[in-house]
């Protein structure tokens, strides 16, 4: 295996020149077709000597045809390797430079990244560790990509050496074409179970043709993989939609056949089978909802998974890969793709519009906004109120938080420049959001609304810059008074209160949001506040602590949290 030092010495331009030279030589030999044809013994020479001459001519033709195919295979393989090596070396150099700039050392034998300086502030530990891990991931993947390029090229050349390449029975040009097709390489599979930055580094190491091949032939590798650019995930997930639908329909047809075939004494099985069928119907309905939402245009399908009890999906409005401001909304109790995605998507579309208006109003005429409806976890439902997956338990939020944290990290990792990233959480979704933000995610702002708790009683546990955590509590929202998961956020020091009441700003009157479910309604003060945060501003925020009578009862006892 080549070392980091070896890879840094590899010359992609020289490899390119070799490919060009081989192409020229192939061309010179293919140009001998006329000589070869004219050099055949005349067919009228019908004697023993003539037959021997013809046989020798045929042998010479075969040797040359095979040689042309070999050169063509090698030219293709070398050309592909040049692209891969250039990319890997670029990525490796960039990662090493990042290490240098951030005062990390790199063992160029093992790829290990280590601290060079002692930290002045213990609080810097987590951030430094995250930086170190990301750089280590990038070095690891660039190294892996470079070695894959080397091994694949060597494999192609060894196929030539072992005489496994045939030019066929056609012309020299035909042999050149068939040889070129054999020069492709096996696409390097993604690293298993690794971080978004690992996956991004792997993706960047693929050639553009390989990336397209992955989308077409292995969409399951990237559709739900954080760290992969949104355009690619969207392409892969749209490709998977049809396959998922077919699989579910086939499964449903088989199940229906079993139901129809139940014997007289098997009635006791019916209920269970019908429940299974209902689940499949819900999943098919979820796919319908996803397709209907995508049909509105300007959207990216970032998550699609029908493998669990509930379908999971995430749809973005705008371009996650280029937007300056990205907001990710996580809803709560009773949310399902089949019944909720359309509504949430509508709310996110309104939010995108209002956030963009805030930018334009502030004089920013070019920045763009993208919003995401993230139903990438299985939110608790009514039929699970009693039990482990209950809305009264944090179990589903804990599971969902891991995926949500990766999603946030993936947004940053998949882009050359980090966007301004805002996390939005409603109801049980605010618990999922709060738990996710207790990890390092790169989120810049957080707004929770109608929250029963964040999974912590201390804002310091959230990895969000101070003064960038906000809550909104509407009048008559009993859920927001619960304080079920950590203390009531209304009482958390360091969490800024935003108004849900009617307000007039610069001559425009915004309506009040009342109850648990109006926070994102268009033209409300609540939505206005969220839009201002998403747009990265705060001078037009309408502040208000939002505490009501219900918050008196949720006041935590000092010393108990």
């Amino acid at each position, binding site marked *: 295996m*080549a*070392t980091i*030092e*070896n*890879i840094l*010495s*590899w*010359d992609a331009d*020289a*490899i390119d*020149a*070799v490919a060009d*030279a*081989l192409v020229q*030589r192939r061309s*010179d*030999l293919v*140009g*001998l077709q*006329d*000589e*070869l044809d*004219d*050099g*055949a*013994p*005349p067919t*009228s*020479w*019908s*004697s023993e*000597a003539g037959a021997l*001459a013809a046989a*020798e*001519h045929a042998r*010479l033709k075969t*040797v*040359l045809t095979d*040689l042309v195919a*070999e*050169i063509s295979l*090698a030219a293709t393989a*070398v050309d592909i*390797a040049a692209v891969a*090596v250039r990319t890997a070396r670029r990525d490796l150099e960039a990662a090493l430079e990042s290490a240098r700039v951030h005062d990390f050392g790199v063992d160029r034998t093992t790829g290990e990244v280590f601290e060079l300086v002692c930290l002045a502030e213990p609080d810097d530990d987590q951030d430094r560790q995250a930086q170190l891990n990301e750089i280590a991931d990038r070095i690891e993947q660039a190294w892996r990509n470079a*070695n894959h390029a*080397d*091994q694949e*090229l*060597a*494999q192609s*050349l*060894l196929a*030539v*050496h072992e005489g496994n390449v045939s030019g066929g029975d056609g012309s020299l040009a035909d042999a050149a074409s068939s040889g070129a097709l054999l020069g492709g390489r096996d696409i390097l599979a993604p690293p298993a179970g690794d971080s978004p930055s690992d996956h991004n580094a792997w993706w960047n190491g693929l050639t553009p043709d390989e990336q397209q091949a992955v989308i077409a032939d292995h969409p399951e590798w990237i559709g739900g993989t954080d760290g992969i650019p949104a355009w690619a995930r969207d392409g892969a997930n749209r490709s998977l939609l049809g396959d998922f639908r077919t699989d579910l329909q086939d499964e449903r047809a088989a199940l229906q056949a079993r139901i129809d075939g139940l014997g007289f004494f098997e009635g006791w099985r019916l209920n269970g089978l019908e429940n299974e069928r209902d689940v499949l119907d819900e999943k098919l309905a979820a796919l319908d909802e996803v397709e209907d939402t995508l049909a509105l245009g300007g959207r990216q399908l970032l998550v699609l998974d029908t493998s669990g009890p509930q379908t999971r999906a995430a749809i973005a409005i705008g371009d996650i890969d280029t937007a300056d401001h990205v907001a990710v909304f996580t809803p709560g109790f009773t949310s399902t793709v089949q019944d909720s995605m359309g509504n949430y998507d509508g709310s996110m579309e309104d939010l995108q519009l209002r956030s963009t208006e805030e930018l334009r109003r502030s004089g920013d005429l070019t920045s763009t906004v993208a919003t995401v409806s993230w139903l990438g976890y299985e939110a608790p439902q009514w039929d699970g109120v009693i039990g482990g997956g209950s809305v009264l338990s944090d179990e589903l939020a804990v599971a969902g938080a891991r995926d949500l944290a990766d999603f946030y990290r993936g947004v940053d990792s998949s882009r050359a420049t980090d966007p301004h990233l805002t996390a939005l959480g409603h109801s049980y979704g605010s618990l999922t959001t709060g738990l996710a933000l207790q990890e390092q995610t790169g989120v810049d702002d957080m707004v929770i609304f109608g929250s029963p708790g964040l999974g912590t009683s201390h804002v310091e546990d959230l990895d969000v810059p101070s003064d960038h955590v906000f809550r909104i509590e509407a009048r008559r929202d009993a859920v927001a008074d619960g304080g079920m998961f950590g203390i009531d956020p209304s009482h958390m020091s360091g969490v800024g209160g935003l108004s849900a009441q009617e307000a007039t700003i610069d001559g425009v009157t915004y309506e009040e949001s009342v109850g648990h479910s109006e926070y994102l309604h268009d033209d409300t003060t609540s939505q206005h506040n969220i839009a201002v945060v998403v747009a990265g501003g705060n001078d037009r925020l309408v502040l208000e602590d939002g505490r009501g009578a219900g918050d008196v009862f949720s006041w935590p006892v000092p010393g108990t949290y």
Partner: protein
Amino acid sequence: MTEISVDAAALRTSAGRMGEAAEVAGSVHLGWPMTDLAEAMTGGVTGMASRLVRTDWLATISSWTTAVQAQESSLRASADAYDGSDATSATGLSGLTGPGAR
């Protein structure tokens, strides 16, 4: 009786074209690109593989060129042989006279 049909001029044409093919092939240098490839990727496994292919290709192009030149020579020799045999036959036939000869 075996029928033999020989066009010596066609044989010489074929020979000439094979000679041209050998000349072109002999000028196609397959060695140095593979040497350059090994030098451009030191420390990797491509270096070893490219050196093996270099050896193979140099041998192939050399033996092919030699064989084509041999084929050219054989075709020319065959053409000369058939011309010589025909001339001998013609010489033998040209002295015939007698009843029916004109």
